[in-house]
């Protein structure tokens, strides 16, 4: 599943470590997400959406 986490994060000026802390995961998980090597659970996807100040998961994640 592709996502635009890295682009949105950089636009907001948030580091990977900040995003990891806000969503309760490790920085390694954020890196894996941004490299499309890991698909988050629904709960984590919602946490990321909130942390990146978006209103819906579809704004960040794209089904293949």
């Amino acid at each position, binding site marked *: 599943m592709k996502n635009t986490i890295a682009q949105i994060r950089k636009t907001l000026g948030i580091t990977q470590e900040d995003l990891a802390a806000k969503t*309760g*995961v*490790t920085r*390694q*998980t954020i890196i*894996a997400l941004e490299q499309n090597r*890991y698909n*988050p*659970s629904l709960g*984590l996807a919602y946490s990321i959406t909130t942390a990146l100040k978006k209103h819906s998961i579809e704004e960040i994640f794209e089904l293949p």
Partner: protein
Amino acid sequence: MIGSPNWFQRRKYSGWGVSPKTWEGWVYIGVAIAIGLLIQFLPIGTEQTKTLITMGLVAVIIIDVVHIMANIPMDERDRIHEAIAERNALWAILFALCGGISWQAVTSVLNKNMEVDPVIIAALVVGLLAKALTNIYLDKKN
């Protein structure tokens, strides 16, 4: 307990257990070793007494490490990786144990005696029970 789960990370590439992640973790290990050595070199009684005290220390450390391992913070990706790695390790161990039992059974038949290691059988039974109980618990929980 004594050690904090935040001081350690789970071992991924060198067996089971934990390894220090922060300076506090290294201090924890250093203090445990220092106490063990102190017990051996201090004139605090007979060798038997020292052995008993050392066994007590080891028991405390084991209980503390188990508590640390059970409470190490892990996110969902860590849990998935741990589950897959532990499952693969289990299958490898099962293969080795069953291979060992099979070999012993074959040599027993050929030598016309019954020499199958009960420890291997006990390990397989314990593993079977652990899996069954875990699945019962998970079926009820979810």
